């Protein structure tokens, strides 16, 4: 199994442990990820406000780079996923937009044809690799560990674009936790917004969203939150002290990246998976 791997800006800077932990175990599963070195930032659902054409060409180029490799494009960031898939949907449904994009890509020997899918790492594990196969590879089952799966927004909504999980009752991350031997806590915030995207422009309101999710997970008795998105992780981990300030919540709650949770179950240490880099000690 071979994929082009989209390098997300945040995983190249603040959450380097995502790719660090992923690199540890993908080979154990026989999955090959080829970094999309020439790929650029997807624009983080901001680029299109400044220029819709730039958004289409830049992301058409990102996907076309994967097409040239003959591979599907995989990302570990939910906002990159949603943004790339938005561009893909726009290009796949409009010959005029494809023509615009391909006019700009021809000089680089690239062409957008729509042949590469854009997937999240979670989908690769649950759909392409399969949870039964993954469960058979587990060497350190997460027995007795209670996880609060936090899906966040951009792996679920808009479902017309993402379409894997039911956005009101998602289950893919839950099933992954169970395949690794972990147990689940039920809590209402699993498909809510972490507040990351407005942390700069509306900090207090965003921290309220973050705090609500954290408090919910703590009160449900979770040992860890696990998330498929490094942006959610940043809100829930780096901003946790601020978000829980004044709420009277009894304890902090460590937040794992999906890639770290898988790594733990495959026998890697917390240090090998960069869990010691988190703001909230695990």
């Amino acid at each position, binding site marked *: 199994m071979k994929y082009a791997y989209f390098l997300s*800006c*945040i995983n*190249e*800077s*603040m*959450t*380097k442990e995502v790719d660090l932990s992923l690199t540890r175990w993908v080979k154990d599963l026989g999955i090959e990820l080829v970094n999309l*070195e*020439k*790929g*650029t*930032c997807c*624009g*983080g*659902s*901001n*680029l*299109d*406000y*400044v*220029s*819709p*054409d*730039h958004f289409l*060409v*830049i992301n058409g*180029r990102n996907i076309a780079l994967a097409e040239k490799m003959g591979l599907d494009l995989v990302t570990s960031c939910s906002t990159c996923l949603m943004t790339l898939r938005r561009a893909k949907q726009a290009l796949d449904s409009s010959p005029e937009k494809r023509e615009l994009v391909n006019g*700009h890509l021809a*000089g*680089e020997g690239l062409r957008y044809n729509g042949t590469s899918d854009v997937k999240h790492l979670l989908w690769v594990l649950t759909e392409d690799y399969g949870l039964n196969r993954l469960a058979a590879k587990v060497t350190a089952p997460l027995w007795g560990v209670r996880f609060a799966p936090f899906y966040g*927004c*951009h792996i679920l*909504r*808009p*479902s017309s674009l993402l379409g894997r999980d039911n*956005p*009101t009752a998602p289950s893919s991350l839950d099933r992954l936790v169970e395949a690794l031997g972990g147990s689940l806590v039920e809590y*209402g915030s699993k498909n*809510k*917004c972490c*507040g990351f*995207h*407005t942390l*700069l*422009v*509306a900090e207090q*309101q*965003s921290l*309220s*969203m973050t705090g*609500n999710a954290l408090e919910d997970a703590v009160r449900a008795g979770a040992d860890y939150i696990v998330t498929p998105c490094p942006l959610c992780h940043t809100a829930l981990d*780096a*901003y946790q002290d*601020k978000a829980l300030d004044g709420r009277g919540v009894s304890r902090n709650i460590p937040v794992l990246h999906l890639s770290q949770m898988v790594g733990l179950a495959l026998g890697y240490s917390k240090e090998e998976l960069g869990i010691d*880099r*988190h*703001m909230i000690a695990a």
Partner: protein
Amino acid sequence: MERKEVAFRIYRYNPQVDRQPFYDNFKIAVERGITILRALNYIKEHLEPRLTFRAFCQAGICGSCAVRINGVSKLACTTQVWDELTGSGDDPILVEPLNNLPVIRDLVVDIDPVMEKLKQNYSWVRPAIAEGEMGQKEHCVSDGEFEAINAATDCILCGSCYSECSMTEVNPRYISPPVLLKAFRMNNDTRDTLGCERLGQVSGDNGLWDCAHCYKCAEHCVKHIPIVDGIHRLREEMFERHMTRSEGARHAQAFFDDIRSTGRLREATLPLRTLGVVKTLRMVPLAAKMGMKGRTPPFVVKPVPGIDRVRGIYRRLEANRAAKQGGE
């Protein structure tokens, strides 16, 4: 006809009498094909006459029967009981009032906050036709012109998007999805003349740039209106009209600039470019703590291989845009 006993768990609250909300449980025999609204009517007629809810058209047109069903905002009149059965079909169906609005009684909420926000934000067409010529002169809208706002005109102001909005939940003063949708719809109506003024109004404090783009509004719109696309379009219009001094616009501009310069987002200076110096200084303590854990983003970002190609794309797109503007 398939028929079964279905349990309902319904939110009850009369602020004039009850110290706090509570839930009532009812079990009624329901045939397949019955809607939640018909079930509520049955309960009111036969079991609990004090149960209070709003409903009118029973056809998904008036929007008055929006409630939360199993936690999701929906119209009671277009939602089938059978579609809401969970577990082995024996779990009670939870019916609650819309979120983010004050409860008047039971399932009835006060929608005045939505109406007030609509009033504050010019949610109507100000036509080009002079006052004195009203009723004498026609301003036609072609099919093509209408198409841009066609979906948005389907809004029935049921309040479901307001109830689902993540930002409204934590900030009751936030402008909210239905008001932004109206602003999009009016600003793209060819009869309207208020574009810039309305855009200035909706993009102020607690406004357009505070949308967290969680997509809950669009996901749960009972008329399937792509509300977030409308919000995006308003943000694009801000740039088209060069209204780019807000923090939200500067934030978006930073993404645009960084892709041209290195291909990667320069996160280290993103707060400074978005917020300016004073507000950024407040972030220093957190940044220092993050630095201790090696989580500070680098100040110097190495350009991605092939950045010249990306810059070339930018040059050509900018030239095209300039030529287009010159031609207009």
